[in-house]
């Protein structure tokens, strides 16, 4: 603290608390709606205190999903799909990026720089700009409605490759030299030295990529036509009818809570890794 200005400190706290309330308001209303009956929600204005339907709503969506108007299928299945997709994307990205950057940093071979630039350029080709042709490729490979189709096209990662490359460049050369003198081959060096040293980078990347995978929207929307392959984020969209009255908002809001809870918990509980991953992947 530079100087003591009690009023300014009070003002700071007031602004922060106001910020937290505004940021948290949508979540609070969502939670309240997920504990009420549909009739409660359709009363204008809807009540702003939690009701007693929490167990009822959540067990309905997890077990059967919405049934009025649109049948969504059980949300438990969607949660499982989201989990599989998020884990596959996070582990896949980390695995293929760490070995690629290991090759690029610790070997000299023809086309090394060419490969590095190829990976770099993928930064400029987000899935949003090549929707139709990518969909066609995946359809031609027969990967529609499969976990492979949902994850494989998303696991190439320029940012993860960069991050590992930056980190490997800081690994002291003496370590590689010592390993070579002791007769360790490159893969032995990778498993016994590089991988243990990369633990913190891997943890930081995992948090970021898990959230990225869980929150995917456009790609699953194109690739899953079968409701049993739907992810939680897509599922919510499919539950909403045009016209407020037909939508079972209590169930939609319970699904929204379920869909945002896992990544939000990951961010808050693994805050240290999250902040680190966020800052490092942007370098």
């Amino acid at each position, binding site marked *: 603290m530079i100087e003591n200005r009690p009023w300014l400190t009070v003002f700071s706290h007031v*602004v922060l608390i106001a910020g937290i309330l505004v940021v948290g308001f*949508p979540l609070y209303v969502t939670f309240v709606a997920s504990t009420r009956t549909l009739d409660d929600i359709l009363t204008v204005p*809807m009540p702003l205190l939690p009701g007693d339907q929490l167990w009822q709503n959540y067990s309905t969506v997890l077990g059967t999903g919405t049934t009025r108007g649109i049948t969504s299928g059980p949300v438990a299945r969607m949660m499982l799909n989201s989990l599989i997709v998020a884990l596959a994307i996070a582990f896949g990205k980390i695995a293929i*990026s760490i*070995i690629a950057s290991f090759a690029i940093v610790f070997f000299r*071979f023809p086309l090394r720089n060419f490969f590095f630039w190829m990976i770099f350029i993928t930064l400029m080709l987000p899935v949003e700009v090549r929707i*139709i042709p990518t969909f066609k490729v995946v359809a031609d490979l027969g990967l529609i409605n499969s976990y492979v189709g949902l994850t494989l096209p998303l696991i190439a990662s320029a940012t993860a490759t960069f991050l590992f490359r930056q980190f490997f460049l800081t690994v002291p050369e003496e370590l590689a030299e010592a390993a070579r003198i002791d007769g360790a081959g490159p893969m032995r060096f990778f498993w016994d030295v590089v991988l243990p040293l990369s633990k913190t980078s891997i943890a930081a990347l995992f948090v970021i990529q898990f959230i990225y995978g869980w929150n995917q929207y456009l790609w699953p929307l194109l690739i899953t036509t079968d409701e049993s392959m739907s992810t939680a984020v897509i599922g919510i969209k499919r539950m909403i009818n045009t016209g407020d009255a037909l939508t079972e908002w209590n169930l939609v809001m319970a699904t929204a809570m379920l869909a*945002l809870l896992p990544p939000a918990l990951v961010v808050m509980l693994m805050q240290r890794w999250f902040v680190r991953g966020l800052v490092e992947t942007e*370098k």
Partner: protein
Amino acid sequence: MEKRVVFRSAWLPYALVAPQIAITIVFFFWPAVQAGWYSFQLQDAFGERTQFVGFENYRALFADANYLQSFKTTALFSLLVAGAGIAISLLLAAMADRVMRGALAYRTLLIWPYAVAPAVAGVLWLFLFAPSIGIITFALRSLGIQWDWVLQGDQAMLLVVIAATWKQISYNFLFFLAGLQSIPRSLIEAAAIDGAGPSRRFWTIVFPLLSPTAFFLLVVNIVYAFFETFGVIDATTQGGPAGATQILVYKVYYDGVKAADLGGSSAQSVILMFIVIALTVVQFKFVERKVQY
């Protein structure tokens, strides 16, 4: 920077880069090339015959008032999202940097929206602003404001801007907070001893030192608004009413998937690729130089 000590193997490095390169070629380069190829073709309604038409698809796009309108909509949308997001998070970060009591708790309670999927963020705000049952709609109505984004284009725009900004505040906040904490305390103390008050210190010392962070966030936020907000738009307004929230990415999707106009959608994809390349170049030039004053 290069390593001097390296391993030697004729095949191992290729095997190690192979998975990444294979995915890159099959799912990135090949589709991008195909988008370029389709953009010069015209397909009939049943997709049976294709005809090479040169730049006809591009010419048609730039003659299309809807497409030009979509450019304007995207520009307005991304400027509003970036501007509002940066201003609000800078205020919060400056306050969080001041307080010592409860700093971690504040941070924890401000960063969780980062984890919310754009589409889910859209649904949360859609519910608050729903024309007949929304709680904010009710509040606005009792203040005498008629709220119905289903009919009013500018209200629909406001809705998607709020949802998209809300999700991005936490990201900006973290970067501003990190930027603020890296400013040497001695500079601020010296200014305080010279008699500069908090607001003067902020605008003459802190803010200029934060400008690289702010510029970086401006680019990142524009990229976010251009591409990652697809979920927000699709879950709420779906580009409506009458194209008022139809940003470029949404139009590529709509024309390609819903309207099955392969040539036109591919031409839009190619134009978007050039926009991403331009934005990436700007971002990297900046990151390389690390502007400091």
